[in-house]
């Protein structure tokens, strides 16, 4: 095998960065002096670019559906099975009383969302609401009877103040309900009024860092504005600055983190702009693609006389 043949066999691995240091050096040296192999490298690059274009990105709907199904399956693995007779289930309602009130509320509130399509229409069964149950298992009973184990979900309307602990527990859970961004948005908006409570603030920070929906993240950021001096809030905002995919979120994060830098007359002040934030801005400048966000970041760095690259 001559040198050209050997080099051409290595071109693909060269593009993948999978040659050893020495192999790569030898190929580079050969390419400098061989026009034909350079042309072969260009063809290899075109081939790789062509491969790129048949890659499939799963639609968001498929991902969402997969997550829902997984959540349902995991919930099903954990659901308790009440092996009592059907008679006991529906005519003796005392079991309802024995269940904790909060658990009932939670089941009603979230169960309806978790199993929206699992209700079975039981015609002729007047004692129960046909839209709020599913059959978990059936088995033959004595004397030709049958035992059916049902999972029930019932909707309940609960009301109360934001300081009611039961209400708050429900709201904190709803703020993380993966199935309904609208619910999360409304819930976060309500929770914003109680962001002085640590548990609420933690939930808002969680939403800011993890919620897939930019509207929910933005809402959570609104609620955290009054607490921008707190270390955990600043850390979360710095995370937004570096990893949130939404340029609007990154812009807002810059504004909040750099409050007090440069007053309305344009005078410079470095009040509160610590080294970490300057470092975060410099890191942002290294990879930020959005021109507007870059401009905002650069302006802040100029105001505090920091370079774009180092501090």
């Amino acid at each position: 095998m001559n040198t050209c043949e050997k080099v051409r066999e290595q071109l693909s691995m060269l593009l993948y960065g999978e040659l050893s240091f020495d192999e790569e050096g030898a190929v580079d040296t050969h390419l400098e002096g061989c026009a034909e192999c350079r042309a072969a490298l260009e063809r290899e690059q075109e081939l790789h670019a062509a491969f790129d274009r048949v890659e499939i990105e799963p639609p968001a709907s498929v991902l969402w559906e997969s997550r829902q199904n997984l959540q349902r399956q995991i919930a099903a693995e954990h659901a308790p099975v009440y092996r009592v007779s059907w008679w006991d289930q529906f005519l003796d309602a005392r079991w309802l009383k024995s269940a904790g009130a909060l658990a009932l509320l939670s089941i009603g509130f979230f169960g309806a969302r978790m199993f929206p399509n699992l209700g079975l229409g039981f015609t002729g069964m007047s004692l129960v609401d046909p839209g709020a149950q599913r059959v978990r298992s059936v088995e033959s009973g004595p004397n030709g009877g049958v035992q059916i184990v049902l999972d029930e979900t019932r909707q309940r309307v609960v009301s109360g103040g934001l300081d009611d602990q039961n209400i708050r527990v429900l709201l904190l859970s709803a703020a993380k309900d993966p199935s309904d961004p609208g619910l999360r948005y409304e819930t976060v908006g309500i929770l914003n009024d109680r962001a002085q409570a640590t548990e609420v603030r933690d939930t808002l920070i969680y939403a800011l860092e993890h919620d897939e929906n930019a509207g929910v993240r933005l809402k959570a950021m609104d609620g955290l504005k009054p607490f921008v001096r707190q270390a955990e809030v600043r850390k979360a905002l710095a995370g937004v600055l570096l990893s949130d995919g939404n340029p609007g979120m990154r812009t807002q994060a810059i504004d909040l983190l750099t409050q007090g830098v440069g007053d309305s007359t344009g005078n410079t002040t470095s009040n509160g702009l610590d080294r970490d934030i300057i470092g975060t801005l410099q890191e942002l400048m290294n990879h930020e693609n959005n021109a507007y966000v870059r401009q905002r970041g650069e302006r802040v760095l100029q105001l505090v006389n920091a370079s774009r690259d180092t501090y």
Partner: protein
Amino acid sequence: MAHKAGFQTDEKALILAAQKGDQDAFGQLVRAYDQSVLRLAMNLLRSPEDAQDVYQEAFLRVYRNLNNFRFDCSFHTWLYRIVTNLCLDHMRKRKVRKEESSLVEGSDGPVDRMDTVQESRAESDPQRTMFSGELRERIQKALSELSARERMVFELRHYQGLKLRNIGEILGTTEEAAKNCLFRATQKMRVALGDFI
């Protein structure tokens, strides 16, 4: 950009919490990896239904066996071992059933059902519209003619961007064997597409 900046440092804490039954922690682990798992399965199997099956089964296995995870390898490697095994099973079964093609009969002749699925970079690349449908068909055909292992290594290296060392670890083989596999795959692809590029 993904929410991964501070995630990796917390991954061990998340796994430990999930092992103790923390559902939120498990959810965060799933969300950190599930998009790339679904993309891998979808590209390999070219069927949304099969990809969703792999997704469900893989994460259920993780859920059921997380307590046995002892940090002998990274969580990513462990998860991908499960996913790639499931995908390889699907691909091998499909070979046996001779159902390798995702082509279905459309009103204007055979169409690839995955053409209805969004392709990456499709909107951002203006040259996309110039891309020859015939070339794409040839690439897909060439990919389907690779062996299951060649297809897997090619997918993991080219589309998932994993290094051969990591791919060897996932597939239970050496880096050298993975490299040979990738070499064979790219050579076959080059031969199949040589007159097009």
